[in-house]
């Protein structure tokens, strides 16, 4: 497994006839292999920009990003991505969506088929392989997106608000699934979210980011992800310890939001 390392990352967007936007300023951090990092912050703090740089979709204006010592220069199969809206291929069945990565590499067909079958059960979609993706609900589509990502066996899984479009109940179930997959696969996961509760519950590491310029304001090491695997999710989220952290992070973000409003 490979460690992810970010050093002095800078991202400046040039805006015509206006001041430049500093989306990221001097961001440095390390994510050892197998951690689950959540990114939280008010809009405009550069968390999606950061994720896109890690995925290789954007080239930073300064600094470096390396995975296992190798610099990241573009998208690659060692970094899988899960988007807010599945970004599934409607013209392919569930099965063909999941096997997309291996098929692009012309991997062994029988092995891929067996792997897809196993993944379908892992994400709770056993027997849905022949369905068309547009026949599935939003939650099930995100399960397909997770399985499609896992089929490629990436080192890092990047998730851009993967549960943002789901209803509250489905969202809780999916949080459990993400924790389970993280535990079972031991992969590094970096997840961007708008929900404080989600960031605390899933993150075994949490970065609260601040805007203008986009930067990491505070780093938390959290126990809940590890506990969440054993105990009941609702109970955990209702515990005094969880609520205390939630209020702390919420007030931190509220302060930032008020500062932004005040400045405008």
């Amino acid at each position: 497994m490979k460690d992810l390392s970010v050093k002095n990352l800078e991202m400046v967007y040039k805006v015509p006839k206006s001041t430049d936007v500093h989306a990221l300023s001097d961001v440095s951090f390390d994510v050892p292999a197998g951690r689950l990092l959540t990114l939280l912050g008010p809009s405009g703090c550069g968390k999606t920009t950061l994720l896109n740089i890690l995925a290789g979709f954007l080239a930073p204006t300064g600094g470096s990003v390396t995975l296992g010592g190798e610099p990241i220069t573009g998208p690659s199969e060692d970094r899988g991505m899960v988007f807010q809206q599945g970004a599934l291929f409607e013209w392919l069945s569930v099965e063909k969506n999941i096997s997309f990565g291996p098929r692009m590499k012309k991997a062994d067909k029988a092995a891929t088929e067996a792997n897809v079958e196993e993944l379908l059960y892992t994400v709770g979609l056993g027997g849905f392989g022949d369905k068309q993706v547009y026949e599935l609900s939003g939650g099930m589509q995100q399960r397909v997106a997770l399985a499609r990502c896992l089929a490629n066996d990436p080192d890092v899984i990047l998730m851009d608000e993967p549960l943002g479009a789901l209803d509250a109940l489905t969202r809780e179930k999916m949080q459990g699934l993400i924790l389970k997959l993280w535990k079972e696969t031991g992969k590094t996961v970096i997840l961007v979210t708008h929900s404080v509760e989600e960031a605390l519950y899933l993150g075994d590491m949490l970065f609260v980011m601040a805007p203008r310029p986009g930067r990491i304001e505070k780093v938390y090491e959290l126990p809940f992800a590890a506990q969440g695997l054993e105990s009941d999710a609702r109970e955990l989220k209702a515990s005094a310890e969880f609520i205390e952290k939630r209020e702390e992070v919420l007030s931190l973000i509220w302060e930032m939001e008020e500062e932004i409003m005040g400045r405008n």
Partner: protein
Amino acid sequence: MATSGPNLGLGSAVATALETADNDRGFSLGGGLFNRGDDRKTVTFGDSAAVKSLPGWSVVSLIGMIALWFVSTRAWGLDDVWRTTGDSQQTFLANCDKDPACAGSYSQWLGYRKFPSPGDTWRGFRELSSEGFQNITLWQHTWSSLSRVLRGMFFGVLFGVPVGLAMGLSSAARGFFDTIVELLRPIPPFALIPLFILMFGIGDPPAVRLLIFASIWIMIIAARSGVRAANLSKVRAAYSLGATKWQVLTRVLIPNALPELFTGLRVALGVSWGTLVAAELVGARDGLGQMIFAARPFFRLDVVVVGIIVISVLGVLMDVFLRFLESILIPWRGKG
């Protein structure tokens, strides 16, 4: 519905085609021939989703059209003067020229012959099917027209789609072809008929080339907007899954553009069909347009009407066929 912003670039014709494609799915309320079906909606006036084409009324209008045709050509005694005199057409015209009274009523006679009755048309159809007009049967005319449209569309798609894809993929290609497309697209194909006849003669060569010209811009724009309609997340997901540029093109962008390509195909087919008949009026030895035009000097209005009906029915059949193909090839349309 399935239509996203970039489709608007195709113009109102496409918007109409897309609208029909989406609305015509609404046959599922369990309604009858004259009954919309009960979906418990109380507000239907203004709710376009609640309005559908009742098949009963379609049958009524079809029967109504035929009945009006029958009554207006028979009931008021607009009978077949030429046939009742027992003269051949040539004899009649020759005699008529010598008789001032007849020459005076010549235009009136033309009026009598203005529109053939359903019976006349049926007889004309039978004659055209077996003996043909000027030794070419209706089916040979139809096939000539159809094969011209198919050949024109084939090359229109063959050249248009790659150019459209390139315009959606490369800024250089977009810049280069934008000038060409924007300058040539507004030219009505009809304006080129004289030029094409002088350049390519009479018959298939000018007709097919004209149809390529009619369909290529539509296919270019359809392919371009198909590529532009691709969700960025899908493309990025494919790259993250290890796809190469070629694989992104063939496995993601082209399948993703199929709905737009199909809409372009339907619009191009309609435009080609219309252009073809006009092109054949002046520059062909066979084909439905030529048949209609050649029948006029002989007052064979039954042939003209048969030609018009065949053109109309074939146009509908081709569109129905394409929609059927669409429902098989792009079942996800409108469900994304």
